[in-house]
């Protein structure tokens, strides 16, 4: 029985066709502008419409996408992409190199860009109809990974003659799906792109992003077949869904690490011994166990395992050793402990549990922690204003390169000042900058290993766990490709 088509009303009533896939998501799609959006509710709709030259696979490995091949010059300054043959936009127009150049230049020019290209780009040109050439002023290794980001998707040159706003209200791209019905505060319905370059795909004719805000509700809808998949099933429900009669889960390694961040500008947490004491006092495996129900790895380093150069398996973490914790606090400026607060966005069960565990861990070394749970908007304002002592949040890679996380979290000169921790270690900063221009290989690996160990020892943050990327599906759903950035590819999906 096909859930999406017979039980789901959205599917069944539409045209009686058998291939609607209904996907439960917890937030609505409010904008389809690929350059200015970053949040997953919009991003994972945008990436169904627009596609970049290169992309990544399930394991985070870069693959050619709209480009059938790419080359990097030996000096690392010239990137050359050759477009596939017969590429068409969903409106039937051919895709040319000019379109790609226009897209990348627009992105560079966008002042509200959410994920701007950080490489020092000298020019983007189209030497011929099928070739795109990017020239850099200085080498920048993460460029290819950055280009794989959804925000570097290709749009028609000059928006096909429309204004930018009109274009993004009714966008045209090369992706497998076309927007057919869009309620900015509700559901988004896609239909299949008849001109999709992967012949015979997608296998479903309709894709519905259905807004189901409540997690439990989504689980129940999946169980009864009202939806065919859930974008973010709660970890605590996975057992049930994995073993259900009609349901299953698909997983992929993740690019996310949930982490306690210390504000090193705070007098207490400026003291590395205090930070180490707390890290030693906490048992991260317990935290993982309590919140992940077996669907996460305890994080020993800030770089998730699914990203290259992660030293998850080899690093020496500061973790779970009460004796050492006591030693550290004794060496600190606060041997008798102190009081502080953990800032927390309310409504997140896992964070609340983790905070309680840190609270009781800290109590063991005489540090009294209060949990300060505030709503998400307040939370963001607070931490962006550095108005916190400890907070819990996640660090997420936007593209499959170690730099994606490390740069953001350890660069005191970046606008987030080491992710609002103000952590600064010139050595780390130097290594970080060096890694950005070092071509992939052992040298880069060494650099990242050193950085990760330093960060682990100085504990500007305590990485907790990296949850698996999980999608819960009806049993009859085949061919769904789960991506490590939490998105999925639907083009191969069939409903059995």
């Amino acid at each position: 029985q096909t859930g999406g088509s017979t039980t789901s009303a959205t599917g069944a009533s539409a045209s009686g066709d058998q291939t609607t896939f209904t996907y439960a998501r917890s937030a609505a799609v409010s904008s389809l502008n690929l350059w200015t959006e970053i949040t997953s509710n919009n991003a994972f709709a945008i990436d169904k419409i627009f596609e970049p030259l290169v992309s990544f696979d399930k394991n985070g490995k870069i693959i050619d996408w709209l480009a059938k091949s790419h080359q990097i010059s030996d000096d690392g300054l010239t990137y050359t992409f050759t477009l596939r043959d017969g590429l068409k936009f969903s409106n039937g127009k051919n895709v040319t190199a000019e379109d790609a150049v226009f897209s990348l230049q627009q992105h560079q020019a966008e002042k509200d860009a959410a994920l701007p290209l950080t490489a020092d780009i000298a020019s983007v040109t189209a030497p011929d109809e099928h070739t795109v050439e990017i020239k850099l002023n200085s080498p920048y290794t993460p460029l290819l990974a950055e280009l794989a980001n959804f925000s570097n998707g290709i749009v028609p040159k000059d928006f096909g003659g429309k204004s930018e706003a009109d274009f993004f209200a009714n966008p045209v791209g090369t992706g497998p799906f076309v927007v057919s019905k869009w309620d900015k505060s509700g559901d988004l319905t896609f239909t299949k792109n008849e001109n999709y370059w992967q012949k015979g795909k997608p296998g479903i004719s309709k894709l519905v992003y259905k807004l189901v805000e409540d997690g439990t509700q989504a689980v129940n809808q999946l169980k009864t077949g009202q939806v065919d998949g859930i974008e973010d099933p709660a970890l605590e429900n996975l057992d049930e869904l994995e073993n259900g009669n009609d349901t299953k889960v698909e997983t992929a390694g993740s690019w996310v690490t949930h982490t306690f961040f210390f504000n090193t500008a705070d007098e207490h947490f400026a003291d590395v011994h205090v930070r180490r004491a707390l890290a030693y006092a906490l048992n991260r495996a317990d935290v993982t166990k309590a919140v992940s129900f077996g669907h996460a790895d305890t994080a020993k380093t800030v770089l998730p395992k699914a990203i290259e150069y992660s030293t998850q398996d080899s690093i020496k973490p500061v973790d779970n050793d009460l004796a050492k914790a006591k030693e550290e606090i004794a060496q600190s400026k606060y041997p008798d402990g102190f009081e502080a607060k953990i800032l927390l966005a309310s409504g997140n069960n896992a964070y609340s549990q983790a905070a309680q565990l840190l609270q009781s861990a800290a109590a063991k070394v005489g540090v009294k922690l209060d949990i300060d749970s505030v709503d998400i908007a307040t939370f963001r304002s607070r931490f962006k204003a550095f108005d916190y002592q400890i907070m819990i949040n996640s660090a997420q890679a936007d593209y499959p390169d170690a730099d994606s996380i490390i740069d953001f979290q350890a660069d005191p000169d970046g606008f987030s000042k080491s992710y609002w921790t103000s952590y600064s270690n010139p050595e780390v900063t130097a290594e970080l900058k060096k890694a950005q221009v070092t071509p992939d290989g052992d040298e880069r690996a060494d650099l990242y290993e050193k950085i990760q160990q330093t960060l682990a020892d100085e504990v500007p943050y305590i990485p907790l766990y990296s949850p698996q990327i999980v999608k819960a599906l009806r049993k009859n759903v085949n061919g769904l490709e789960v991506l490590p950035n939490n998105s999925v590819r639907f083009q191969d999906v069939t409903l059995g």
Partner: protein
Amino acid sequence: MLSHYSLRLRVLEHRLPHTLIAGLALLAAIVLAAIIIPAVSPYDPIAEDIPSMLQPPSFAHPFGTDQLGRDLLVRVAAAGRVDLALMVGVELLPFLIGTCAGLVAGYYGGWPDRIITLLSDALIAFPFYLLVAVVAFVTGTGITGIFLTFLIMGWIIFARTVKGATASLAGAEWVDSARVMGFSDASILFRQLLPNVLSQAVIVLVSDMVALLVAIVTLGYLGLGVRPPTPDWGTMIADGQSFLATRWWVSTLPGAAVVLVGIALALIGDGLNDMRRRA
């Protein structure tokens, strides 16, 4: 004298409706459990024990354990202390304010009544969750927010009840007698009228407490309730609701506690009502 005494007793027995007795007994049992269990239990309501997380009810843990391996029985009891105290504490001020406002509005009518009515109408027309959220966001989640929210909304129901009761009494001849006697308005309001409307206000108070408790629990569900790790029925129910299907005890047992308190208070309210009507 002895006969007097026994007579009084008999009158008392006679007067107390069985619903009231049952309700009081139930409430007393709940309060006692909330006081005694955490005192005698070997478990600490806030100390985690990850290895024994989410165990079903057993001899060692009659109510099972929660996500952090804490004994739910002792947590439910400890939460009872918090929530019952909160329930009473939070209702107190609205009760006082609402009763005074109702007295004034009911006795004077005219513009005091109109202002109070306008204010309460406007507050009712104000979306409740907007208020809840705004207050919680301003104060941060936790007891202060709960307190403020219900201070802002809670007085209305008392004001309305007391106003109605006062207005219906204000025309009574004994009120006029008091005026003829030369008593001041304040004295008439608080010494003459108040004792007569108080019972109605108290009945509302009791039944409103159930509503309040449920509201606090709902705030917990929305993540705006009592802050962890303080045990609270609402957050406990909310934490467990996502595995209601697989680990029913985590949210059902705290839920049962709320229901029990609800029943007790409803019985008390019923009983008080019966008593008032009999008197």
